[in-house]
C-alpha cells in the first residue's frame, strides 16, 4: 500500500526544512529548530502545499506536503526571500509566490525520498487548508523560526 512507499521520518522533514530555510532565508545560518512546546492556534493562518503523484511497486498514490503558518510569518518569509526593507510592501502576488515556493522546495525534497517515480504539482496557497477528506495524516513537524512557528505536515490521499 501507499504508506509503504511513502515513509518519511520526522528527522528527515526537519533536515529538509532546516536546509531550505538556512539556504533560502537565513544566509547559511541555521535558525530553524524543532518546536517541542505546543503549537499555538494560528489567528490568521496561511497554507501552502504541493502534491506528488507517484507510481510505486505497491501501486499509484498521491502524497501531499503542507506548510502552515501565520500570514504575518508568510509576509516575513517573503520579505526575507526578496530581501525587502521592513517598510516595503509585500504584494499578494509575491506572498503567494514566495510562500508557495517554500512548499515547492520542501515538497520537492520530500519527493526525492519517496521510493517511486513521482510527479510534483505546482504549489498552491490559501487561507484554508487543502481538502482533508480521504487524506491520511502521515507526519507533522512544528518548527520555530526567528521566534515564529510553522508546521510542516505530510499526507497520503486515499
Amino acid at each position, binding site marked *: 500500500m501507499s504508506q509503504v512507499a511513502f515513509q518519511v521520518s520526522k528527522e528527515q522533514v526537519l533536515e529538509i526544512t532546516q536546509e531550505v530555510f538556512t539556504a533560502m532565508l537565513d544566509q547559511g545560518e541555521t535558525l530553524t529548530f524543532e518546536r517541542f512546546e505546543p503549537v499555538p492556534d494560528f489567528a490568521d493562518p496561511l497554507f501552502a502545499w504541493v502534491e506528488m503523484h507517484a507510481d510505486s511497486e505497491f501501486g499509484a498514490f498521491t502524497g501531499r506536503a503542507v506548510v502552515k503558518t501565520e500570514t504575518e510569518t508568510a509576509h516575513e518569509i517573503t520579505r526575507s526571500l526578496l530581501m525587502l526593507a521592513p517598510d516595503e510592501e509585500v504584494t499578494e502576488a509575491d506572498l503567494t509566490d514566495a510562500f508557495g515556493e517554500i512548499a515547492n522546495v520542501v515538497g520537492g525534497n520530500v519527493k*526525492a525520498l519517496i521510493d517511486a517515480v513521482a510527479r510534483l504539482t505546482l504549489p498552491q496557497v490559501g487561507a484554508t487548508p487543502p481538502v482533508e477528506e480521504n487524506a491520511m495524516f502521515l507526519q507533522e513537524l512544528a518548527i520555530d523560526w526567528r521566534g515564529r512557528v510553522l508546521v510542516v505536515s505530510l499526507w497520503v490521499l486515499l
Partner: protein
Amino acid sequence: MFVLVADDSRVMRQIVIRTLRQAGYDDWEIIEANDGQEAYEMALDHQPDLILSDWNMPRATGIEALQALRQAGCDIPFGFVTSEGSPEMREQAEAAGALFLIAKPFTADSFREALDPVLA
C-alpha cells in the same frame, strides 16, 4: 555571458539571479522566462549562451522545453535549477541533454560547482 533564466516563480528567478551575482557571475546579462513555452521561444529568438531552467512549470515543463529545443536543432547549453533532484530526474535530465542539475535549495557554491566546469 548572456543567460536565460526560466522559472514560473518570480521570487525564485530573483533568488537565482542574486545567487549568480553572489557566485561571482556579476557581469552576466540575464533575460527571464515565465514558463517552459516562453523559455523555448525566447531561446530561439535571443540565442543566449546558457539556459538555467526550473523543471516543473506551467504550459511546458523545463524538460519539454529542452527536448523541443534539441528537436529544433538548438544546442544552447542547458542546466536545471529545480527542487526535484532525485537520481531519476538527474538521469532524465542528462538523457535529454542537460549539462547539470542544481537542486533547490542551493547556495552560491552549488552554482560555482555546476557552472565553472561548463564555463571552462
